[in-house]
């Protein structure tokens, strides 16, 4: 681990610790009632209960989390594949972008949750409705981000390879690398969006299995189990943060992080 990355890690840990201390202080101060703000110790207990094998599956937060994350990740992967394909095609030529961009911008402006009831009916209230809503919400984000990245790829570099007579295979590889930074940016944007949509759709309509973070949060809210509600918030937040850190680390490893700074 380099000195810089160790320093970043220490700062991140300090920020988390400060946030936790503030939360604890607010919860214990009594300024905000327990029905609105759970005590972090109670939340930790609720999370610890997730590892209790004696507890029924429905009572374990992590069982719900697994189901929700699988839905979110499935939608995210499909959206990435579809969105990147659309984005690369859209960014290939300026006229293609001019033609296609309004369509994708329009789709991005429409809240995907509006399509959820239709998809529920179309897919007989099954899992594809949840995944499909995530895909609909993420594809425009990915497509537009990747298309802009492709349009903004360095002309100097592609021209240089043409002048030097570099083989097509190498030129194709460098073209892929040129668009990779925008793919990573799109992946990070879409990941947080997919988590949001997954939880919201589960809150709107509980999946048949009944196993879903959104459904658990809704139940906890209605029965004033604030500690469970906050446990859901913590799990979603931690997963989103961890996934972002992993994607950034891969980006750094590939040397793509500084791609727009030169």
């Amino acid at each position: 681990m380099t000195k810089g990355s160790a320093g970043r890690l220490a700062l991140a840990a300090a920020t988390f610790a400060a946030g936790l201390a503030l939360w604890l202080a607010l919860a214990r101060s009594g300024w905000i009632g327990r029905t609105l703000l759970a005590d972090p110790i109670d939340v930790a207990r609720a999370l610890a209960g997730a590892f209790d094998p004696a507890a029924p599956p429905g009572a374990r937060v992590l069982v719900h989390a697994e189901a929700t994350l699988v839905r979110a990740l499935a939608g995210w992967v499909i959206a990435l594949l579809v969105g990147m394909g659309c984005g690369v095609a859209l960014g290939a030529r300026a006229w293609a972008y001019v033609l296609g961009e309004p369509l994708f911008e329009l789709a991005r402006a429409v809240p995907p949750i509006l399509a959820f009831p239709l998809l529920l009916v179309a897919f007989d209230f099954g899992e594809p409705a949840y995944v499909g809503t995530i895909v609909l919400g993420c594809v425009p984000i990915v497509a537009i981000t990747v298309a802009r990245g492709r349009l903004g790829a360095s002309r100097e570099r592609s021209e240089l390879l043409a002048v030097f007579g570099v083989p097509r295979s190498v030129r194709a590889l460098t073209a892929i690398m040129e668009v990779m930074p925008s793919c990573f940016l799109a992946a990070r944007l879409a990941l947080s969006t997919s988590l949001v949509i997954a939880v919201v759709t589960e809150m709107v309509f509980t999946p048949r299995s009944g196993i879903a973070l959104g459904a658990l949060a809704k139940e906890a809210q209605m029965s004033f189990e604030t500690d469970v509600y906050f446990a859901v918030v913590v799990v979603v937040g931690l997963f989103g943060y961890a996934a972002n850190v992993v994607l950034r680390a891969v980006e750094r490893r590939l040397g793509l992080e500084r791609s727009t700074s030169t």
Partner: protein
Amino acid sequence: MAGEREQPAEPLTLRRVAASHAAARVVVSASFEVAAGEIVGLAGPNGCGKSTLLRTVAGLHPCERGEVVLPRSRTPAGVARVALVPQGYAQSFWPWASLRSGIALAASGSGRGWYRSAAARAQSLRAELALDLDLGLRPYQCSGGMLQQAALLRALAAFASGPEVLLADEPFSALDVDVARRARAALRRFVRERGVRALVVLHDVESLVETCDRVLVIDGKPWSTDGASEGVSTARMVLNARLGSRRPDGDADAAAPTTSSFGDAMARVLGAGPHP
């Protein structure tokens, strides 16, 4: 020894080349040759079409009329090895690759083992050119001057026996005085020894005098080396100055006629006399 190799005799030839920039014709008719081992400089005011002409020769810009004839190559493909030092040198390196890898990428068309051999060539040329450059750095870790040195190094190291045609757009603009002097001397030596035809856009007089065998001083736009030809009566003249009197290794020679103030001024500064 590179200097002992048989020099291919064919020049880089431009015949009545016409090119436009932003829908305006800037080069009406450019006809000249660049011989093997010769460096021809293009000088002139901003926007007169120097870079446009260079890009046209590189095949990056449409040649609207006339033709650019590259010398025949002794490579199996028969295609002349053309190397470019672009004006946008800072953007011409890949952020995810070290300078060494960026140089090697440009060499990937030169057969098996291209990466290792190009990296080795870059390393040895770096020493030969006395460039103070760490090839393991990424572009964002480099200054503009370092990137410009790397761009020059890439152009010279991309092919096993050097490029046959070298096109460079202001290749010394970001270098400090000492490095620029070393780079100019090294470029001259390289071009001479390996019979490269070099067409170089330069702005400052010192670079022109120290680098070029011959300079085309362009007097404005649109311009033509053939005078007011091709039905364009407003075409500006071009001073074709062969440098020599001020150059330690050059021959004193003459210049083609010109009438313009810029051309005259450049001729005076360059010490090139009028055509006899």
